[in-house]
């Protein structure tokens, strides 16, 4: 199912020569076209990567996410808009439907602009909490840019390049960046993430940062007025739905603006001017969000009987096996990076696992790289094992879900039957059966002998007992 879908997606992508795996129709939501050139570099990069952009204002009636039940766009970017809500065409339910239809969304916020209610509601559904009144400013008195207009406000954070959330997660966003490069996060709004497994912070606030509402919380604020502080504040967050639709939340829309793409900044701690990473980061972030990065695809799955000398071993993907058969399972995966499918390599300290399960896994085996069947564009992982001594309807299941990688959840159902009546060893090869076989033989022989003797013995004279016996 998912296999065919991703194939279709791939074909479609090829047809329109787009770089994204799920299409190139990108909708940009702006207040007015005037804002366009503020983001010209960012949008230009997108255009150059093959997206065709269409700009709409939230209230425009020509805007509709679906046409005849099909998505009319593949991706959406929300830039900050003044309007409180986003009108009838961008209600939270519509946006959820858009995600469920495998559309991708990039949401950007700004500290001066209250986030639209419908976006707030959407994020709430995804278990992302925005500050009260959907407005807030993240400041940090230690890691702010020292040399810009509002240096006193400490509201331009300079952050180290994002590190991967976990050690076994591939690093998508900071690749190539040195440890002392900085990422400028001007006048942004921070969010807190719930415990949902589908959520991941990309950029966290430094331990010394906190968020407050400049309009209301003037003067001193107490600990429990603070919306969130430190690493609990997620400045850039990623959400990937079960169907691999992606949503990224950028706390500061300004960091995508031309002004910050190649601005030179100096840290509050001093030091020399440095060029910000923003442009590269924006590219990678949008690339991930719009399915250009970390997209996994199952090319094919193959399981077969692995019994030497058994004719059925040639049959691919049979739907029935026998208990205690030896079987082989191979799955071929590819990963999409920017513009091409490449062989997917599982990180070193991670495993791609195969489960053979009925109600609960009977086997859980690591799949090993099969060089003979791998290529540049696809890597094959394989496992040999012996089926359990239990008949039933089993599933070959590969369930590989990792942060920032699209979900692989493949399920192939096979039946495992019992021994057929002619698959057991014959009685005469079982040594334990020999006494009984001998017994049978003896009985037969004895009976024949008895008959012979009986025939020879003369019939008794008094007929009574004779014919009583012969009856």
């Amino acid at each position, binding site marked *: 199912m998912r296999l065919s879908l991703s194939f279709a997606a791939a074909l479609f992508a090829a047809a329109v020569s787009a770089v994204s795996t799920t299409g190139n129709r990108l909708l940009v939501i702006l207040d007015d076209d005037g804002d366009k050139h503020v983001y010209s570099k960012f949008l230009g990069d997108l255009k150059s990567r093959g997206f065709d952009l269409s700009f709409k204002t939230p209230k425009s009636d020509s805007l509709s996410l679906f046409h005849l039940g099909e998505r009319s766009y593949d991706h959406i970017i929300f830039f900050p808009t003044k309007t409180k809500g986003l009108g009838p065409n961008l209600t*939270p*339910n519509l946006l*959820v439907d858009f*995600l*469920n239809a495998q559309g991708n969304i990039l949401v950007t916020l700004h500290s001066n602009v209250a986030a639209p209610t419908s976006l707030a*509601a959407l994020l*709430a*559904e*995804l*278990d992302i*909490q925005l500050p*009260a009144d959907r407005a807030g400013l993240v400041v940090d008195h230690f890691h702010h840019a020292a040399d810009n207009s509002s240096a006193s406000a400490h509201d331009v954070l300079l952050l180290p390049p994002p590190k991967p*959330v*976990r050690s076994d997660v591939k690093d998508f966003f900071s690749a190539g960046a040195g440890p002392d490069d900085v990422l400028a996060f001007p006048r942004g709004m921070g969010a*807190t*993430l*719930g*415990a*949902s*497994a*589908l959520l991941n912070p990309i950029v966290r606030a430094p331990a010394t940062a906190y968020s407050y509402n400049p309009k209301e919380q003037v003067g001193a604020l107490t600990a429990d007025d603070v919306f*969130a502080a430190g690493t*609990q504040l997620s400045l850039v967050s990623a959400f990937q*739905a*079960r*169907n691999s*639709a992606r949503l990224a939340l950028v706390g500061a829309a300004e960091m995508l603006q031309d002004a910050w793409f190649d601005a030179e900044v100096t840290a509050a701690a001093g030091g020399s001017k440095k060029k910000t990473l923003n442009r590269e980061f924006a590219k990678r972030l949008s690339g991930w969000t719009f399915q250009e990065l970390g997209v996994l695809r199952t090319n094919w799955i193959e399981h077969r009987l692995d019994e030497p000398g058994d004719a059925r071993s040639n049959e691919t993907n049979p739907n*029935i096996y026998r208990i205690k058969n030896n079987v082989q399972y191979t799955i071929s995966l590819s990963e999409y990076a920017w513009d091409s499918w490449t062989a997917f390599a599982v990180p070193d300290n991670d495993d791609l696992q195969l489960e053979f399960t*009925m*109600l609960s896994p009977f086997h859980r085996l690591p799949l090993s790289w099969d060089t003979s069947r791998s290529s540049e564009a696809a890597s094959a992982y394989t496992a040999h094992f012996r089926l359990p001594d239990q*008949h*039933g*309807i*089993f599933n070959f299941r590969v369930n590989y879900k990792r942060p920032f990688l699209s979900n692989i959840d493949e399920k192939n*159902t096979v*039946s*495992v*039957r*019992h021994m*057929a*009546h*002619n698959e057991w060893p014959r009685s005469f090869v079982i040594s334990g059966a020999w006494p009984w076989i001998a017994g049978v033989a003896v009985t037969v022989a004895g009976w024949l002998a008895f008959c012979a003797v009986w025939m020879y013995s003369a019939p008794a004279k008094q007929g009574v007992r004779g014919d*009583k016996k012969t*009856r």
Partner: protein
Amino acid sequence: MSAADPLQVLASAGKGESTRSVLRVIILALIAGAAISSRLFSVIRFESIIHEFDPWFNFRATKYLVANGFYNFWDWFDDRTWHPLGRVTGGTLYPGLMVTSGVIYHALRALTIPVDIRNICVLLAPGFSGLTAIAAYLLTNEMTPSPSAGLLAALFMGIAPGYISRSVAGSYDNEAIAIFLLVFTFYLWIKALKQGSMLWGALCALFYGYMVASWGGYAFITCLLPLHSFVLICMGRYSTRLYVAYTTWYALGTLASMQIPFVGFLPVKTSEHMPALGIFGFLQLLAFLDYVRSAIPSRQFQTFLWLFAGTAFGVGLLGLVVATSMGFIAPWSGRFYSLWDTGYAKIHIPIIASVSEHQPTAWPAFFFDLQMLVWLFPVGVYLLFQELADEHVFIVVYALFGSYFAGVMVRLMLTLTPVVCVAAAIAVSHLLDIYLNAKSPENPDAAADKDADGKKGGKAGLKSTNKPLVGIYAGWVKSVIVSSFAIYLLLFVMHCTWVTSNAYSSPSVVLASRLPDGSQHIIDDYREAYQWLRQNTREDAKIMSWWDYGYQIGGMADRPTLVDNNTWNNTHIATVGKAMASSEERSYPIMRQHEVDYVLVVFGGLLGYSGDDINKFLWMVRIAEGIWPDEVKERDFFTARGEYRVDGDATETMKNSVMYKTSYYNYQNLFPPGQAVDRMRGVRLPEVGPQLTHLEEAFTSENWIIRIYKVKDLDNLGRDHASAVAFDKGVKKKKPAKKKGPRVLRVE
């Protein structure tokens, strides 16, 4: 009416042996025809369709057999039932029925008669009922010299409702052929016993094997024949004939029965089969003693021998008991044990007690199924006591145990019916033979000495038959009896026809109801729903329903089911019961684990259809409670006053159970607000119906009898279903603002 004509014909035209036999053949053919045709009501009324539940499995299995050949059938692993366990069907069924119809099918094909396998399955039972009538004829002829008795027995057997109930066209069940095999095996046994012939014994064993291959009820034969032999031995009637007949039957029959995978080694392992084994050994002993006795004719020695035999028997019995208690021999299996200890099943095996055909029989059922035979039956048994030959002893023993079992379990009425027919036929024929005797005795004193052979049995016989048989003097007496019994027989025939057409000819798949104006209205919800499943769901969509409907879903909708009427795995059934009895949140993981796609419930509230799931619900709860006493409690489904209610006062557990929600979901919308009424339970339902979160309604049949729900997938955005539903309904998610206590922090 065919009830009367054989008698008149025999009486008048019956001259010469040849004509008689020709007449007999014709009459038998007529009776067989009557038997078959009286079973075709359902085909004529509805169509050629398989009935009820189990037949649907047999039908499916037969199709598989015909399609894939015998060996594949033998090794059949069925992955469309008991998902995900599957069922080793080939090894857990009685193949006799399927193989029989398979053979017929191929035979007809060989004769280039193209016939649909379905029609063979539908018409198999009537066809075999004709054979059963003939078997009854043969068996009865072994009992009495009177030729009319056999014909009467055949007639009774042909049309007795007790047998028709399981053999109408379309009820394609094991009993369809098993009853014929039962009667015929008994006939062969009697034959073997009378002649002490190995040939007949071997034939008996052969048909016993066929019976074992066809029906679990073979244990009835396995217990009855040894019992008969034992009684004979106790009556001091041991003879070489008995020895030959029994040993032949037992040795060959046991071997034959062990060829059936489902039976396997049971004949030497379980208690049901131990009597046969014991008697077998005991007979060997007796044969030896008999030989010794004939060799050494000494009075004391013989008494010593008999004592020895008795003690040996006792010791054997003791050994059996010990072996059972120590576990070498499996104790009585639940079904059989519940026949003796009648309270057992209700406490220990609710799954057996829950089946309606395992309920005890009330007297109306007896009368309904046997009408006047029910009192003619003892008369016949009494007559058999006159000269108590070995075969008569058999009928007596059979009568006793048959009536006991029939009293304990409704379905065993089936095993009682044959002996009832035989005995009743003997009684009636005896009456008629006496009262139809054209010539009367002239005068008393002449009659007294003329009738010398009237003395039957003498002192050993019955007190009533000590006087010589005189005969009937007055002609009018004869005419009265003849006419009255003609009327009774007529009435009997009418009764049977009426019962068959009204009670036993509805294929419970299609319900027929009468409209106010008397016209017939067909309620076809089952097939509607199964057709919907067949056409609108994935080929491998798993359907969860209560086990009653498993076979039908498998047969008609061709979709995998979790449980079905072959209740081999109590835990799995209890799992379904638990899923039905728990709240959605609790049962959703269970359904996910079992990959359930759809939930099917039967709801009779709109139509007042009594056989619905809400009425069966308590059984589900009980069965589930048997496995998870802490999670499912029957008590929680009763109100504080101990009532089982579905209306507003129903307990919370009841209202939250999946079964309740799926049954009553949206039901109130059919009525004006507050007017919702459950016509089955006859109660008013609360104004607001139940809300579903983890399930969504997929299909509801025309009369709401079948309701199908789809099990939702996990939420795409990782929310729980309740909040997802709330969001779709447009309920604003309240802000987690100003939360009290420590804030929850996210940790990677």
